[in-house]
């Protein structure tokens, strides 16, 4: 398995205020799959994404990414892991405010020795005419496209998306999901998408539902629906 999560547990706080966020989660995701992680607020889905992204440490369990056990890595090695393997997309884009669209993408181009072609990527994202604009001059959807391009430029093995459509209207959200689907098809990037929007489950290969820190459903989607046909 490309991503193999084995009985991971994670808690926050201590004593009486200790909160068990992940209570022993195990999952396997194949390379190239789009996987959605669904769950209500506070279910632990973002925490699950963070530990896979090496942003947080588990208390117990193992996480293997392409055979690499990231749960044992030290911070420096984790930085290298993120640099070599991961792309991140956030709900509020987190673009560098005084760099242009093109420059924001180049920020991540710098991190790899074999980046994707920026011009092609910009074109794929539909940002050709906006590439010299600053984020403050873009709409939410355009900013998120820029963020996606930034994450993709280093050709990551895994793309982690934390509520990528959370700050967008439904039309724009659909456009973003269509884009992610395209990327998945074009580049074969394994994607983990955290969202509370259940509509997305129909377009992905695997659905993982989390509640109270445990997976209560984990299944392969036998009948994929293209993103363009989803009802938002």
């Amino acid at each position, binding site marked *: 398995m490309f991503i193999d999560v084995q009985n991971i547990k994670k808690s926050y706080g201590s004593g009486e205020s200790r909160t068990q966020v992940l209570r022993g989660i195990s999952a396997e995701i194949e390379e190239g799959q789009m996987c959605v992680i669904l769950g209500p607020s506070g279910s632990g889905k973002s925490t699950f994404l963070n530990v896979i992204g090496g942003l947080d440490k588990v208390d117990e369990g193992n996480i293997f990414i392409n055979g690499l056990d990231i749960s044992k890595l030290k911070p420096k090695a984790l930085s290298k892991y993120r640099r070599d393997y991961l*792309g991140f997309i956030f709900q509020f884009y*987190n673009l560098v405010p005084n760099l242009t669209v093109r420059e924001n993408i180049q920020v991540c181009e710098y991190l790899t020795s074999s980046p994707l072609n920026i011009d092609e990527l910009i074109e794929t994202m539909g940002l050709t005419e906006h590439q010299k604009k600053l984020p403050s001059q873009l709409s939410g959807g355009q900013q998120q496209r820029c963020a996606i391009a930034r994450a993709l430029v280093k050709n990551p093995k895994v793309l982690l998306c934390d509520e990528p459509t959370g700050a967008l209207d439904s039309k724009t959200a659909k456009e973003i999901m269509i884009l992610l689907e395209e990327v998945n098809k074009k580049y074969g990037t394994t994607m983990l998408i955290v969202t509370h929007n259940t509509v997305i489950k129909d377009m992905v290969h695997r659905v993982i539902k989390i509640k109270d820190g445990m997976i209560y459903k984990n299944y392969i989607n036998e009948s994929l629906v293209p993103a363009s046909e989803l009802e938002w």
Partner: protein
Amino acid sequence: MILNRRVLRDLKANIFRYLSLFIMIVLGMTIVIGLCAAAETVIKWTNDSSVKNHIEDGQFSVFVPLADNNIAELEDKGITLEKNFYIDFLAEENSTLRVFKNRQKINLIAPDDGEVPVSENEIFIEKNYAKVHKISVGDTITIGKINFTVCGIGSAPDYENVMNNLSDIGNDTEKFSIAFVSDNAYEKLSKSGLSKKTETFLYSFLLNGKMTSDELKDYLLNIEFDENLITDKYLREMIDEANAKKNEINDGIAELSDGGNELTNGLSKLDDNSDKLNKAASSVFDAMLMSASQQLETTLTEENYAKALDDTYAQLEAVMPEKAALVAETKAQLDKLSEFKKGINSYTDGVAKAKDGSEKLSDGIKELQSKAKNLTDEYFTVNIPNLTSYLDAEDNPRIGAAADDVLINKVCAIFGGVVLLILFSYVISVFVVHNIDRESQVIGALYSLGYVKKELLRHYLILPAIITFLGGAVGTLLGILTTSCQYKGSIIYYSFPTPVNNCPAYLLVYGLVMPPLVSVIVNLLVINKKLSQSPLKMLRHEKKEHRISNVNLGKISFVNRFRIRQMLREIRASLTLCGGMLIALIFMMISVNCYAIVHNLSEQNKADTKFSYMYTLKYPPDTAPENSEACYAETLSKEIYGYDFDVTVMGIDNDSKYYDFDVSKLKKNEIAVSSSVANKFKISNGDKVTLSDKANNMDYTFTVKKIVPYSVGLNVFMDIDKMRSFFEQNDNYYNVLLSDKKLDIDTDRVYSCITYDDITSFADVIGNRMWGLIISIGTAAIVIFIVVMYLMLKMMIDRSAFSISLVKIFGYNDKEINKLYLGGSFWTVLVSALICVPTAKFIMDAFYPYLVSNVACGIDLTIFPVTYVLIFALIFVSYFIINYILTWRLKKISETDILKNRE
């Protein structure tokens, strides 16, 4: 790294902020580099020109010029010696010129314009004096009623600080300077009788590595002066008087001895004829006896004649009365002759005894004569040590003074430069931290994407490094270009050849490397922690809440609570504001203390100087002139901060008209220390103080019994009688006269004459010199303070922009918002001022004595309370102006713009 393109954009977006910091750095580095380059120029140039002009290794003065054989002996040992005799004359506008012969071997004069004097009517004038009195080459000046043509203007290395007396606080070339003439001209002047005081017999020497200074001093101390070389009429008089007394006694004893010898000779002769006399007397008696024997037809002897004749008389008295009478007469004659003979015997015995006695008398007189000679040699010889002063060049305040002065400036500038850079770098770091806080989520995203801390650290350090490097570079360039302005003060005050600018390589390194290096280090230390947060915390924008932010405020009003919390949230900026205020105030206190020292010196000197004239005498008259007060002064020395200062021990009467304190209860080795000495050397009551007589290699230790308010020069006081006893002088000895009016004293008796004007004007001279420094440092301090305060307060507003727009949306009006967000800053400034003003004064008071360590005066740094009021007023006027500007800024914050860029 593409991220670095942000640097210039960030700079443009905050151009005013970074420009003001850039300008501050430029100004700071201009002053620092300028001061350092000026110092290096002066130090190198004065050292080089001193070497080139054969600066002395030392000098000494004597009562009587050295004999040729002494000079030859020293030169044989490898010492270079040159006469540096001088006489003081009244010159232009009531000033004094010290006239020397032109030098040939040591302390060569260096013309800036013209040439050295050669002919009899030429004179070379010291440059600062020439400038003040508007004298040029070719002008004519009159000294000692002789007209001289100015042939050259320049300087002499042994009078770099053109001080009249070594104990002076400083120089005033308007009133005193030096001049050089040819040998013939000097001889003419010395014979003119118009000098202000007696000629000083000074020698300069170069050791050439052949002797140590101590060896030379020992040699000089053991030289007895040749009385035949005395030209000083008073010394000649003193020695002649002593010799006359000695001769009188010795002559008297010699006469006595001659008399004794004559007596002995006379008595010997009498004694030689005693036998004859005795024999003659016996003959006469015997003849008479024989005649009587023949007449009486009996044998008469000296023993029986009286009885025999008495018997014969008794027999003849009744029968032959005429014969009896004859017998009686004969007996009477024989009696008389017998008496005569006995008398002659007694006389001749007496003569013999007298002769013996006179021989003994003669022997006794010879012994008396021999002992009397030793005694008169001991008590009637003028035992004056010929060496009156001895000074190594390194202890001479006239030599190397400019370099010493600027060295202090240099050290302070280098240190001050680093402190300023730390301040500015810290201010920049506060902005960088603010940016990091603002961009926390973006940074978190970058970490998530694979960026490491090192890369972001490098990115955030670029702008501070660029600003400080550029500021340092421009400041260095301007500093180098303005070097001559910085050492102008030295040129005006000290006398040395006009220098060529010198900027050693280390200053370029200091100016170009130090600012970015300090900036990188300071920013690294500050932002490293910020960037060390985990990516997740950065993404979540988790701020570390300091306990201080959550302090329980109890039951206070909402507005006050809000203001306090706002202040606590901005604690970093508040502390930066406080730190900036402290540093600015420390610099301001340099100005304040400069003003204090000048003002206090001026006022106190005027108040403490009660005499109009102080004469220091070389040959005091037997009695002090009328309307003058006699005192006794000894000049000793004491060291502090590596400088030797002359300290005058002054013996005064208890009822002195000119000193307000009582010294009568002081014992023999107890002193009253003046406030200036106590301040300068940090002496307290009860301390033991050692003062040195360097010329005679003696140290004297005194106990400080009291500290008296007296600011003039560096003086300690003793009771004059106890002082005379302490220094083994006669009961009536004195060598200083104080008076309200000018005294009619032969100038040949006088070492120096200081007037009330001389003393009180020194403080003004120092003040004039310091005003430029006072104003420039004070202004720089104010600018630093205002800029730092503005930047910090503005940043506090910028950081609160989101919440300000929120409260605007809630309905708060401008006045209320002002109260909430700016009102607290008043208390920040007030508390900072209350802490920083006294702290800055305390720090600078501790450090300031080092800044003026080469100045021979007490350091009274007391300032009027109104000065503190003025400082506070300055702080708050600045604050209110900034507050007004920031109120306008508050109004500009728009609700919609901020809400768009939500936190």
